[in-house]
């Protein structure tokens, strides 16, 4: 009797190297994407901190 998992039609995944490409301009690796996101987070915190300091 086959386990139920074997009945699943597998999702056909693209070749691994396609997943390694971000498809984004300037941000060609996932590491650069993560750094960009982290940079956006730091910028958000700095803007919020500036607002807090200016208006407190």
């Amino acid at each position, binding site marked *: 009797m086959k386990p139920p998992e074997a009945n699943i039609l597998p999702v056909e995944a693209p070749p691994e190297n396609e*997943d390694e490409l971000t498809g*984004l301009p300037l941000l060609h690796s996932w590491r650069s994407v993560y750094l960009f996101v982290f940079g*956006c987070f730091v910028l958000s915190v700095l803007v919020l901190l500036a607002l807090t300091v200016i208006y407190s």
Partner: protein
Amino acid sequence: MNFLDLAVLVCSMLAIAAYGTWHTRRHRDLSHYLRGDERVGWLTIGISVAATQASAITFISTPGQGFESGLDFVQNYFGMPLALILICAVFLPFYRRLNVYTAYEFLGRRFDAKTRLLGASLFLLQRGLAAGITIYAPAIILSTVLGWRLDLTIIFSGLLVIIYTVIGGSRAVSLTQKYQMAIIFSGMAAAFIILLIKLPATIGDAFTIAGGFKKINAVNFSVDPHRRYTFWTGLLGGLFLSLSYFGTDQSQVQRYISGSSLRESRLGLMFNAVLKIPMQFFILLLGVMVFVFYQFEPQPIFFNQSAWNQALQHDPNGKLQMLEQEFEAAHAQKLQFIRQWLDAKHNGDRAATATAQAQALAAFDHSDAVRAEAQTVMQANDPGVKSNDADYVFVSFILGYLPHGLIGLLIAAFFAAALQSKAAELNALGSTTTVDFYRHLIKRDATDAHYVIASKWFTLFWGLVALAFALFANLVENLIQAINIVGSVFYGVVLGLFLVAFFLKRVSGTAIFWAALVSQALVFILYFSLSISYLWYNFIGCAACVLLGLAIQTAMGPADKATLASVP
């Protein structure tokens, strides 16, 4: 609301639901029903992830949070971008590689069946509790303010979402969320613009007033563990909360594992990582601007006018009426000082500015104390009354000051927000029940068509459970905090299970199973014993689960290699 508002509300809700149901009524197989179309791109995933998290509680309650406490709640989301990066780098590749339907399937492959069932059970318990809150919460507020019957409001919104989620599955959820988010963002943007136009002060002066009344308090580096929202609770506690919610909660996992490729799923999550903090900031800022608005306009002493009117009828000494008059007088005096403050600021007179600001702050403290006393008297006269009215602030503003048509759009936005997160929750509850319990334990060898029908029945079951909970529940405190508290009590332990699964290969299923049970009990005990910020329970639950897992495995001796499943 008038006929135009009602027409906008009813037509938009029914049109989206009908379109979603019709367009997704056919399903090829179980994968298609539970994971949707494999051509789903990053923008659909990104919107779906955002929509699943942003329920009606976000859009009704968060502005109220901003009105009462200012911007500090934004810190709650500081951990989220970092959590999403970790999920993209570690969790997501595992889920895609193993081609799982649910996050708990992964636990089964890594550990054993009992750990899989434990993870799935904790999810069903936590999400099942939350499901009732996310139907009840907007319904109670809207029915109170609009005068609708609460039970009919709950039933209307609940049945609508059950119908299209049961029929259309994951695809219906994603499709309807796109249009619902469009309504939400256009409604909130319009409300923000109209508020700024109606504000009898410039934006600079509005920020000055808000800052003077300590509402521009977005970042706080305090290390006081009793303080609910600080940079540290947000970064650390919020990191663990987000890791668990986005990485292990099936209602989110199901939204992004359905991407056409790993790349599309990752980009969808990164979309959220970039936009979430600014989005929450603007929603809180809306509440802060409503606060500024009510410094110039007559502010009700209690925003839940229905409860206030009822309280007046049960006030034998006329105390509430006296407090209302005192509040109006204090408000008028405060306004006088605010005008003097702004005049002095425009004239560049620093001494006069400081004096007028101090007087305005003192007047604000006085009016706030009168408001608090009124709430105390209300509760003394009727202990069953809900004395926190923060959830009614934004709705009161909308009904009192926005034009017709836009009122309907915003009420539609609230319903849309309720439906979109509810749909994702029901879809996830149905999937987990089908895949982790029914197919795994009860009927292991049936056809795909059978499992699709079973999924539909389970989704319907959970929808009715949530409806029943909403119809008979009674809630306390600010709703957005209640939802986060329920999450924080359960999420830490579930995250601990997954972190051990990913990173600590020598821990076996038996060790982590018992560690999770003990950790969850510990979190419950601590929650009812301590008075620390609830965000810390994410960290505590996770740390306890990981450390106990290691300790128990050490006490048991090295795990048998055969019991350590190899997961690529």
